[in-house]
Every structure is written in C-alpha cells, then in structure tokens.
C-alpha cells in the first residue's frame, strides 16, 4: 500500500491522476454533447425531455454519474495542489522571460483556463442540474401511440385524439375493421427543455457559456494530447493521430456546446 500512496503523491503520480480524470471527463463530454443534440429537435422538447428521463432513471447511468462528480472533484483538488507546488518551485521569477518562444499559451495557463471552466460549471449545475433534481419544475405531457405496430411520439394531444377518433369511426362504419391503435402511453415529465429555453434568453448567461466553452477549448487543445504524454503514450506512430483527434475534439465539442445557448437566444 505504501508504494501505492507514494506513487499517487509524487509529481508523476499526481499528474497521472490529472491525466486519467481528464480523459474520463473528455469521454463524458462526448456523450453529453451527443445527448444534448436533442435540444435542436424542433418538437416542443419531447426528444430532450424524454432523454433526460432516461439519463436520470437508468441505474447504470446513475452510478456513472456519481463517478463523474467524484472525477470532477479529484481533477479540481489535484489541480490546485499541482499548481501551488509548481509555483513554489520558482520563488523568484525572471525579470525578462520570453515564454512564447518555447511553449504555447494554453499549456502555460491550464490553471486559469480550469478556473474559468469551474465558474462556468458551478453556474451550469445551479441552473440546470440543481433545478432538475431539487426544485419543482413544470411538467409537460407527451404521448406515445402504437399505430399499426409503429410507435408515434408526439406532444400534441390533438394528434392523438384525431387518430383515435378516426379509427373509432372507421370501426363504427365497419364492425370487422380492426382498430390500428393498440396502445396509448401518456408521459408526464419535467420540462427541462422549457427551463433551458427561458435561461438562454439571458444574454449574460449566454456570454458566460460562450466564454466557458472558449476556455474549455483551449484547456483541451493542450490537455487532450498532454494526457497521453502523461500516460507515456509518445510514439511517432501515435502522436500525429493524437494531435489530430485532439484538435478536432477541442474545436468541435466546445463549438457544439456553444451553439446551444446561441440557438435558444436567437430562436
């Protein structure tokens, strides 16, 4: 056990923790971004609200979400320790230092970028996560009708009623006619979509989100490839792949997230 603790409190061990937690967060953000694409469906939030029910109900996903909260906390605490230790390593700085000549800005400012992400994250959690879990948010009803074996999802009560009454009248005219509607399900779910819609009418929140995503992008432009170097994956075969994937990830994912507040603000 001794070597285990030592391995995780050494400079290398702490960095390993940063790398593993960072990569887990990267994996999470990919899923999160893909899931949130449901926000762009123009269906009164049905896809999105049903998706949130799935995400908060499924026990496996629930377990992973606790792991995720822990990961954020560990990544954050470890980053504070690392940053303080690193600063202590040079008590007196240079009068003239041309850091741009040998390294990228983002690589030197991971702590600042992380802090911006943290501010964003707290606001984000208070706005949506806490709302969803802790306070009464209005509910909305969606319907699933099984028609001729196909499931049709809709937010429109009228649609459901129209289909059903049409089938009934067909049956009335022709007693041998089989009603094609075999099932109607009614879902009453929390309307998080509405919460999102309202929240993003506030320009300050939109600006904070854009700023947060910009910071995330720069954090990952360095972090993505750095995490692999920390793990010891540095090979002329893999480095170009890691750099390309890292660049694509760090630009596309934050851009997708940034598109969400913009979409609702201008909607």
């Amino acid at each position, binding site marked *: 056990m001794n*070597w*285990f603790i*030592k*391995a995780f409190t*050494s*400079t*290398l*061990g*702490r*960095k*390993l923790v940063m790398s593993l937690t960072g990569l887990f967060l990267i994996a999470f953000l990919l899923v999160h971004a893909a899931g949130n694409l449901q926000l762009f469906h123009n269906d009164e939030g049905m896809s999105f609200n049903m998706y949130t029910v799935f995400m908060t109900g499924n026990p496996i996903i629930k377990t992973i979400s606790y792991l995720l909260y822990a990961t954020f906390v560990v990544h954050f605490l470890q980053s504070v320790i*690392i940053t303080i*230790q*690193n*600063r*202590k*390593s*040079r*008590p*007196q*700085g*240079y*009068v*003239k*230092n*041309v*850091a741009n*000549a*040998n*390294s*990228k800005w983002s*690589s*030197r400012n*991971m702590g600042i970028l992380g802090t911006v992400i943290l501010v964003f994250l707290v606001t984000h959690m208070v706005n949506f996560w806490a709302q969803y879990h802790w306070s009464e948010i209005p509910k909305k009803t969606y319907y699933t009708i099984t028609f001729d074996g196909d499931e049709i999802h809709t937010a429109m009560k009228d649609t459901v009623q129209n289909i059903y009454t049409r089938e009934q009248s067909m049956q009335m005219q022709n007693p041998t006619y089989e009603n094609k509607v075999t099932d109607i399900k009614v879902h009453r779910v929390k309307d998080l979509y509405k919460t999102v819609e309202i929240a993003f009418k506030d320009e300050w929140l939109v600006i904070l989100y854009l700023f947060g995503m910009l910071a995330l992008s720069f954090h990952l432009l*360095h972090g993505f*490839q*750095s995490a692999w*170097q*920390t*793990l*010891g*994956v*540095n*090979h002329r075969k893999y480095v170009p792949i890691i750099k390309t994937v890292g660049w694509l990830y760090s630009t596309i994912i934050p851009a997708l997230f940034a598109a969400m507040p913009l979409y609702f603000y201008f909607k």
Partner: protein
Amino acid sequence: MKFQLKIWRQANASVAGKMVDYTIDGVNPDMSFLEMIDVLNEELIRKNDTPVAFDHDCREGICGMCSMYINGRAHGPQKATTTCQLMMRHFTDGETIYVEPFRAKAFPIIKDLVVDRSSFDRIQDVGGFVSVNTGQVKDANNLPVEKEKADMAMDAASCIGCGACVAACKNASAMLFVSAKVSQYALLPQGQPERKIRVQKMVAQMDAEGFGGCTNTGACEAECPKEISISNIARMNREYFSAGLLQD
C-alpha cells in the same frame, strides 16, 4: 559591436539582488557570449569593481557548466546552443541584453549568475549509474543491442546536465534531465537489473529537491542545447508507473 547589458548582480544568497546596467563597446562579433562577459569583467576589474561571477568550464558545449538566462531564454535565443557557443554576431548592434541566472528553488543562487546545481548531482547519486563494473569492451555481438535502442540511448545520454530545462520550465521541473538519465539506462542491457529501483529513487530525489511537476508545455525540449526529446519524459512515466504497479 556595442551593447546595453542588464545583468543580475547579487553578492550572495542571503542578500537581495538587482539588475545593473552596463555598456560595453568594441565587441568582436565572433566572440562568444562568455568572452564578451570576460571583456566586461576586465573592464570592471580595471575600475576596481567586482567582476560578474558566472559558471563556465569547457567553453565548447560539452560540460554543461555555463548557464545564464539571456534575453528571456535559457542559454539565449539561439537554438540548440549553450551560452559558451553563443556568438555575439547572433545579436544586433546596440541591442539591450538581459542576463539573469537560472531560476529555481532547487538551484539557489551562489553569486550573480552562478547557481548551485548540486541538486542534479544528488539525483544522479541515487541511481544515475550502473552499480557493478561492466568490464572491458566486449566482443562485438556478445551483447546484442537493437540499433534503434542504441540510438535512443545515445540521444538521451547526450544530456550535459546544464539545467536549461529547469530554467525554461514554468514549473522549474527537472523531468527532462531525470528522464534522459532514466532512459539512457532503461534502454540498454547493462541498466536492466536496477531499472525499477533506479526510476523510483531518482523521481523521489527529484521531488525531494523541490523541482516542480510536468505540465507538458514542451519548453524544456525547445530550449535544451542538446535537443533532448520529451519522448524521454513519456518513457520515464511508463517506467515509473510500471515499476510501481508491476512490482515483483
């Protein structure tokens, strides 16, 4: 050539230092940076001033003694060049040149531009060697080594231990130095028996000396006069984690 020099002067570790301005004229463009300071020092001695203390030995880029943070860069602006090999023709006439010591908690200032780099020696002392005498040169092919590994070991072994990596790193991290020493032995057959214990001891000593961690900024690699690659740091990470996790 004529230069405005701003040089860090500090009598010893216990007093505060400051940048002091000097003007130097008649510099031969083919002088090295150290020779330029030599000329300045002769002038200072003539004026009964204290000459600027600085480290140097071989003056041909192999001993790793010279240091200096010149114009905001370790060993100055020239790529893959030690201060002793940096020529004045690389500067423009009339330029203002900042000269500071390498700065790190683990490199305390002794005087002016001279810093105490014995922390590197202590890291070497705990594992940067092969404990047994490996004897005379063997017959060729007696102990086969893959060409690629021999080359990588040679590249790592070209580290002269000057400390530019520490000086350039925003965290004053010694990872490039330590990883070069670890790699050099991890890649060769003679290094195998002590492979695991070496990396663990050297990393522990590096941490004890107060060097910072690695943020993978790549500044060390960019400023290293011997162009040691940060792939050595990745190797050290692999060596360290596997030594810890896969202990026999």
